């Protein structure tokens, strides 16, 4: 079918104002926050499952790629239409369909923004725990499709732990419902788990029922300073093995500390080789006890320990940490943060070693690498800033990233703990997954024989 005929068909399905072929709009949807690029032929902002089913059927008949996109905050090109075709911008489907307080559940459309969902739940004393740095703008659909997590995953786990059921449009336009409103169900294969984290390669998520948690009554933040990241890594192992489950456990290295202090001088983080930021939540008693236990566990390794004095300071520290990924760009006007090789995960016990390796890689390539991240679950974000107009710096950056990825895999870790595979890390999946990747390909072919669902992603 000609492109112009397709456009007419798409306009018939969603209405003219919900389809764009404007060159400016297509350009804006040709990337996310990663370095992956791909120009779509159409951008559509659907408003119903029915529309999506019709769009996907049409695309399937004509073998046109369909790429779902939430807020485009991804760091791996997951929402980038690398083979062109249709981008479905899901952000117009942003309603809360049902808040089921007694069952601690909420049913939502995928375009709702994480923070807006939590703002709506707050009056009921409930929340959806997965809490990425992008929570102010990322959508639930994107979080589910990437199995995103964030700073509180050390205690609360990842998005997967909160998805009870999904409505999914399959590649031929069929609409299925997975899972159950019952909190436990073993009826059949867990298709919900299959679609969570599938990055739009198997179907389009159009609705989700989520499990919620009660908001904790108290939170407290503790900052522990160390001579270097390796000592901080040892302290994390010690804290976690002593039986405390902090609600967050973040590492900031020297450069990140400087970036936060530059971004918001009021915060005034102590100058140190590395800082661990612990958060403990719960009741007044459990928080007090948790903070004391962390202090004890860190005491022999830390150079200083201080608690946030009040809620305001705690919130400021947390807000700054949330934005640090991009804030490292502020350290040098000539350099910009580039998200490549930024999301490795390693077994907890390997953390100090991995931190040491990152430092060696930094020295080898003469490229400053900043380290921060959710160290409590072994997830390290390695931040590199380069002069983006220099080809030589790009080459160094890509080589350093490759080495970081291979090192992580070599010690039993992963190339991506939460940001996703997308196109950026697809080439490492064979190395990381081995024959399991073949099974993924079999599943992909069974559900999407024509390969229209987000092609060019996840190595499938």
């Amino acid at each position, binding site marked *: 079918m000609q492109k112009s005929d397709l456009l007419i068909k798409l306009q018939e399905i969603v209405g003219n104002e919900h389809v764009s072929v404007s060159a400016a709009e297509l350009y804006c949807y040709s990337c996310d*926050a990663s370095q992956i690029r791909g120009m779509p032929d159409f951008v559509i*902002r659907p408003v119903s499952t029915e529309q999506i089913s019709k769009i996907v059927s049409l695309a399937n008949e004509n073998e046109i790629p369909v790429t779902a996109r939430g807020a485009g905050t991804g760091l791996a090109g997951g929402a980038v239409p690398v083979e062109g075709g249709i981008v479905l911008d899901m952000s117009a489907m942003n309603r809360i369909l049902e808040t089921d307080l007694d069952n601690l559940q909420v049913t939502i459309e995928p375009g709702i923004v994480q923070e807006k969902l939590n703002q709506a739940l707050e009056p009921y004393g409930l929340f959806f725990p997965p809490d990425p740095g992008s929570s102010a703008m990322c959508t639930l659909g994107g979080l589910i499709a990437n199995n995103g997590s964030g700073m509180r995953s050390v205690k609360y786990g990842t998005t997967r732990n909160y998805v009870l059921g999904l409505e999914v449009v399959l590649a031929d336009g069929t609409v299925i419902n997975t899972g159950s409103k019952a909190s436990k169900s073993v009826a059949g294969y867990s298709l919900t788990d299959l679609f969570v984290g599938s990055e739009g390669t198997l179907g389009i998520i159009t609705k989700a029922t989520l499990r919620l948690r009660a908001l904790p009554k108290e939170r407290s933040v503790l900052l522990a300073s160390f001579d270097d990241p390796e000592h901080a890594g040892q302290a994390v192992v010690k804290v976690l093995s002593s039986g405390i489950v902090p609600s967050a456990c973040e590492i900031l290295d020297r450069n990140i500390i400087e970036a936060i202090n530059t971004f918001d001088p009021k915060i005034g983080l102590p100058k140190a080789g590395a800082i661990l930021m612990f958060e403990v939540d719960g009741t007044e008693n459990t928080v007090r006890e948790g903070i004391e236990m962390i202090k004890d566990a860190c005491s022999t390794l830390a150079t200083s320990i201080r608690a946030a004095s009040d809620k305001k300071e705690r919130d400021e520290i947390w807000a700054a940490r949330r934005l640090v990924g991009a804030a490292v760009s502020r350290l040098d006007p000539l350099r910009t943060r580039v998200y490549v090789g930024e999301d490795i995960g390693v077994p907890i016990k390997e953390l100090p070693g991995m931190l040491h390796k990152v430092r060696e890689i930094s020295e080898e390539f003469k490229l400053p690498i900043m380290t921060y991240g959710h160290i409590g679950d072994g997830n390290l974000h390695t931040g590199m800033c380069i002069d983006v107009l220099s080809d030589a710096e790009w080459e160094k950056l890509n080589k350093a990233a490759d080495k970081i990825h291979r090192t992580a895999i070599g010690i039993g870790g992963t190339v991506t703990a939460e940001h996703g595979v997308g196109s950026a890390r697809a080439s490492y999946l064979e190395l990381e997954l081995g024959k399991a990747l073949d099974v993924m390909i079999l599943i992909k072919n069974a559900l999407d024989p024509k390969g229209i669902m987000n092609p060019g992603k996840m190595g499938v």
Partner: protein
Amino acid sequence: MMNDEDMRSILKCVRCGTCRSVCPVFDVNGWESSSSRGRMLVAHGISQGLEVDKGVFDSINTCTTCGLCEEICPSGASPVKVIENVRHQLVLQGKMTDAQKLIRADALEKGNPLGESKDRMAWLGDSRNDLPEKSKYVFFAGCLASYRYPEITKKTFDILRKFGVTVLEEEVCCGSPLLRTGSDPSELMSKNLEQIKKTGAHTVITGCAGCYTTLKNDFPEELNVLHVTEFLAERLAEMDLKKLDLKVTYHDPCHLGRCNGVFDAPRQLIKAVCYLEEMKSNRERSKCCGAGGGVLKGYPELSLELSKNRLEEIPKDVDYLVTACPLCRTNLKRGGPRVDVLDIIDLVEMAME
């Protein structure tokens, strides 16, 4: 067209999308091209040969230049500067919308972007014959205040003249509408500058946020500029204001507050005469009224939606919404507020009666 410095300022955006959470235009339109990140991408696209069509104009020209994205941008990008620069580069190539052309033609030919040919200084009325030629302070009324709000402008000047303030003989547009929409304002600026010098004034006082930021930050020579609220807040003791039994809320004009840090002076004035209850977003994080950056002229329907969204932030049980810029006032009134919108001088005058 683009040098390394311009390119770097575009590439400073890491496309994290944080601006999506605050851009008031994106909130209404929902398409990526109407977010600040989208505009940075379009700016990049233009440098790579993206054809300048309606889609490009609608992306670049729908920014109100409110600067809220810049306020929260973690990577330190400056979308407003980039957008104004792109508008300017496009205008230099003759690429501009009808609204941009109209603003430019009216401002340059008639001295105001409203297309008014009437006597600009008519608001002065009887006071006209009684003005000192020289003064330390000169009042710059601005186009909107002169033509659309002559009564408030007269009230403002009547208060100011007690402190020895004079006006310009032949004030013309400050240049803000041209600057924000990509045209060259230097001719207007020179005319005003020449007259400011003639009065011998060391300080220019204005009641318009757009004039304020332009006079202060964009004129070819450095000027000492005060907003009328700053001038009066320093002179509260001499003004003999009575307390009013009113509760009001205050809209921070973006170009006065966020862009120039004038948050306290208007609040000092309000608190001196009545009770102030803040809007949901205020000070640095204040939402835009929707009029700036040429959006009211170029995209009146969008501008109306932005106004309505801002008006939703008015707290319950207030008597008035007060602001300190005639452009904000105009657009907030367009949005159909449930309480009347006052210029801060209206409120001060009520307390003087």
